[in-house]
């Protein structure tokens, strides 16, 4: 899936690049393809998200049951009865409390513990604030807390609905009271343990005196671990979800998020009115919110309605239970089962809950199965759509095939340019041939400098030093041999710098050839860099499918050619240095220190003279070698069989770069369409489909 999206993104980029260069006819097609790409990517994103959700659901270790009910219907009471927790941990609407943040209650052993998970700035803005902007059409949501605080959202249009006005007010409340909860959003600890008695602070929308609180606004959820009254509920968790008090966008959103990501079963808690009962709009609204939160699963398979039976007292509604159940069955509301229980009676609650869980476990596997099937179907649909897109895109790619309209003009241009290129190379070869007999001033200067250095640097020890060394070594013969061995590398070292001069010669040659290609050959428009880089980059762009074998060989031959000290000079210097080997001048005992000094001075001077002679003989060689290389290159790329065809292939592919003004980019630019084709192939491969072999755009 990710690969497909990457391939689509690449295709989209290519498409955007092409748009600037195509004719109107192709532009229509291209825009159509662009729209399909956008659709497909959106579709892909949805599928990816759904798969992620399904995956998360299948990985969840516990069965999570969400309790949903409007204020005063007995939801909190039901949960208290189920978990044995009190008002302190599960706020009840009776005291004017409203659940502002979901609490997940998991069974555990030991005393009750709780931890609060806060939003960070990013999730706060994305999950809580952004939906208001989206829903109310307020433009782009703020990207930072500072921006949210600084910029008041634009006013609603006058004809806005009541619901919108309410929501707008809610957003205002978030903004106006940001200071009160901001610390939680930017604090170090996303998760904070709290004592059970403090839980209320973080989940309730009002305090005990009915004054609004704001801490809950920063809370993502509260996790409570408590000892349930029935200890056989190990794999279960319940979640206390906000009801829908009034048209509260926040509550609805929190509810949807919880249902989407965390809940396996929903229990609607409803306390029928003892006097007159019917299914109200608010009931249906709440049902619809739940139904649409997980649209791919029929809500009737994973929801239960628990009717809160109030026994005795003013509120006794025992008589109405059956009536209400019948009314629900008549309405749009569909649930798996409807049960009744006195929510204050843990025994009844436990009994109902057991029934619910028993049924839920039975259907949950089926639900999961159907969910996976659905995801697979969606993926298959997406890939099929991608293949449709590929089909559309290929229509464009076919335009790369040369058409009769531009080819004659291309041939004319190519023949002119190839002619100039040939003349340019021929002239260069002749120029280099002529220069083989010219004096190479740079190399001569380098050689002269090296010899000058050598004559100054290579110094034979004085006879006094030789006497001293002989005293140490024991014999003049040994000193003489040692000195010859020392002098040889000392001399040869002086000539290493000639490497640079040789390199200059090759660089100049590459520059000259590159100049012919960029000027006469008009390849300068490719902007491939200077001289050697140009030649290498151009060679790299030649197709390696065998259609330009001679050119590739020629360019490789040219760019790989080097001249260096090791290859050209070293062996000559070494050969001369043999003269300074002890065995070519056997020491004679009568010579003494002065004799050694004399002979060594003479031998060093003589060796340098001979090196000078050798290097002077060499002075024409770099130019000769360079000439030979360029001549060979010229013969390869101009004279060999099929070379003209190879150049035509190359120029054809590059024609819109070389003669930009002559060819409409799309019609002529085979290179661009080859890129397009490759991008389309990428999509096809990612979609796993088989594509017909595309015809390459070549003449």
């Amino acid at each position, binding site marked *: 899936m990710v690969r497909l999206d990457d391939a689509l993104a690449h295709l989209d980029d290519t498409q955007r690049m092409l748009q600037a260069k195509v004719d109107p006819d192709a532009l229509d097609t291209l825009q159509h393809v662009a729209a399909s790409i956008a659709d497909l990517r959106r579709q892909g994103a949805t599928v990816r998200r759904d798969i992620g959700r399904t995956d998360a659901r299948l990985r969840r270790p516990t069965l999570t049951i969400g309790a949903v009910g409007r204020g005063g219907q007995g939801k909190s009471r039901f949960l208290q009865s189920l978990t044995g927790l009190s008002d302190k941990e599960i706020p009840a609407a009776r005291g004017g409390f409203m659940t502002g943040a979901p609490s997940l209650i998991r069974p555990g052993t030991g005393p009750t513990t709780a931890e609060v998970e806060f939003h960070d700035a990013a999730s706060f803005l994305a999950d809580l604030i952004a939906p208001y902007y989206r829903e109310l059409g307020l433009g782009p949501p703020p990207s930072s807390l500072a921006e949210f605080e600084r910029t008041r959202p634009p006013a609603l249009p006058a004809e806005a609905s009541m619901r919108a006005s309410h929501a707008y007010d809610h957003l205002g409340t978030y903004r106006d009271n940001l200071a009160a909860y901001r610390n939680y959003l930017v604090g170090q600890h996303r998760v904070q343990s709290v004592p059970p008695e403090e839980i209320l602070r973080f989940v309730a929308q009002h305090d005990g005196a009915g004054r609004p609180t704001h801490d809950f606004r920063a809370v993502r959820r509260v996790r409570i671990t408590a000892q349930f009254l029935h200890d056989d509920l190990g794999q279960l968790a319940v979640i206390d979800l906000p009801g829908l008090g009034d048209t509260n966008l926040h509550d609805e959103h929190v509810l949807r998020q919880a249902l989407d990501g965390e809940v396996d079963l929903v229990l609607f808690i409803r306390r029928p009115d003892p006097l007159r009962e019917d299914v109200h709009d608010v009931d249906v609204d709440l049902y619809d919110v739940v139904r649409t939160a997980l649209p791919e699963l029929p809500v009737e398979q994973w929801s239960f309605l628990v009717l809160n039976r109030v026994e005795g007292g003013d509120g006794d509604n025992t008589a109405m239970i059956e009536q209400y159940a019948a009314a629900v069955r008549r309405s749009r509301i569909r649930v798996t089962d409807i049960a009744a229980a006195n929510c204050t009676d843990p025994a009844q609650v436990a009994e109902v809950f057991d029934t619910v869980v028993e049924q839920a476990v039975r259907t949950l596997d089926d639900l999961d199965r159907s969910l996976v099937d659905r995801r697979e179907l969606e993926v298959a649909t997406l890939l099929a759509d991608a293949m449709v897109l590929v089909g559309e895109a290929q229509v464009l790619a076919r335009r790369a095939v040369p058409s009769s309209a531009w080819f004659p003009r291309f041939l004319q241009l190519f023949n002119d340019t190839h002619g100039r290129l040939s003349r340019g190379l021929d002239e260069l070869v002749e120029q280099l041939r002529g220069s083989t007999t010219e004096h190479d001033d740079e190399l001569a200067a380098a050689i002269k400098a090296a010899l000058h250095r050598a004559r100054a640097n290579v110094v034979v020890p004085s006879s006094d030093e030789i006497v001293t060394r002989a005293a140490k070594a024991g014999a003049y013969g040994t000193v003489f041999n040692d000195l010859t061995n020392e002098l040889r590398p000392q001399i040869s070292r002086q000539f290493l710098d000639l490497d640079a001069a040789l390199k200059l010669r090759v660089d100049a040659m590459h520059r000259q050839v590159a100049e012919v290609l960029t000027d006469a050959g008009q390849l300068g428009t490719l902007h491939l860099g200077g001289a050697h880089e140009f030649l290498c980059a151009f060679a790299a762009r030649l197709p390696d499918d065998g259609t330009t074998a001679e050119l590739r060989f020629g360019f490789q031959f040219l760019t790989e050619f080097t001249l260096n000290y090791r290859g050209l000079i070293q062996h000559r210097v070494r050969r001369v240095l043999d003269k300074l080997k002890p065995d070519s*001048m*056997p*020491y*004679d005992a*009568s*010579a003494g220190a*002065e*004799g050694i*000094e*004399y*002979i060594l001075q*003479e*031998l060093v*001077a*003589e060796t*340098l*003279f*001979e090196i000078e*002679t050798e290097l*002077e*003989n060499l002075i024409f060689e770099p130019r000769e070698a360079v000439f030979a290389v360029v001549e060979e290159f010229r013969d390869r790329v101009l004279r060999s069989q099929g070379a003209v065809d190879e150049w035509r292939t190359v120029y054809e592919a590059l024609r819109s770069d070389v003669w930009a003004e002559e060819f409409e980019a799309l019609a002529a630019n085979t290179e661009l369409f080859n890129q397009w084709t490759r991008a389309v192939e990428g999509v096809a491969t990612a979609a796993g489909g088989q594509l017909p072999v595309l015809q390459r755009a070549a003449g």
Partner: protein
Amino acid sequence: MFVRDSTHGRVMDVVMLGPRGVGKTSLLASLYDQFPSVVGESALELSVTDGTTRSLLQGYREDLRRFARGGPARDRGVGGTTNLRQYLLGLGTNGKRPPQMTLRFTDMPGVLLDKSDGHAERVKLNQILPTASVIFVAIDSPAMLERRGVYNEEINKPAHVSEFVKDAVTTTGHKLVVFVPLKCERYAASAADLTQLTVEVKRHYRSLIDGFASAPHVFCGAVLTTVQTVGSMHFSRFETGTYGEPCEVFRLSRFGATYDPRDTDQPLRWMLRFAVNGFMARDKTVGEAFRDWWNDTDHTLTQALRKFGAACKEDEGFEILHRHPYLELP
């Protein structure tokens, strides 16, 4: 071939030809050095009656020997010649006074080749050359071989020297031109170098050598002999002098090398072959014929020729460039 001279009898003129510094005087000194031993093989004898000749040539011999010792002092060898000079060597059968013939060597400063005809010594050279029977063309070998011969034109001036030789060999008579590449110590060890040297000599004097065959009234032989006048000193390198001029530097060929000339007898042997053959074939007066018959001179000379002529070399640096009957052994 021989000039009759009132004091010296039959005189054969021998000219040392070549530009400055190529080794004319050294070659002359070497010939003088070798004379006694080469001639001593036969029943001939060498006589020096002239004190100037003896003391100068003796002095030059010593200069060569001193140069041969080499070493840090860098003795410069034979000094440059300042004046045209003639040296007389008598050659005849043992015990006969005066000797049957006199070899008159002319040595000169190389600069004479560039002097105008008003120069007194140049006038003298112009007189001597046409009468000369043997011309030694001294050649500086390093200048010819090193650095692809870049210094050859400046030092050996082959075309210029050739003009003088041509002038000399256009006069009637028998002539011998001996090309003597000198300072060959360094190249003698390598047959390839020697071959290259002979090739270069022939190339540079091509037109001259070719001319020997075409001169109608002249019988001119030509020989090439490479010599090592001291043996112990090798050409080492050219150094650049104060004014950019090329300076030849020599060094001791090995530790402890001493005076050890090689092949300096060769030009001498060829010259003697030529001289003695020519002497035997001369137009004799009745008196001379009688004296020769009486003394059995021809026999003695033939024997001598066979003795010292046998050791003439003809390969690896030695070559007869143009044959002449007087170069043959009887």
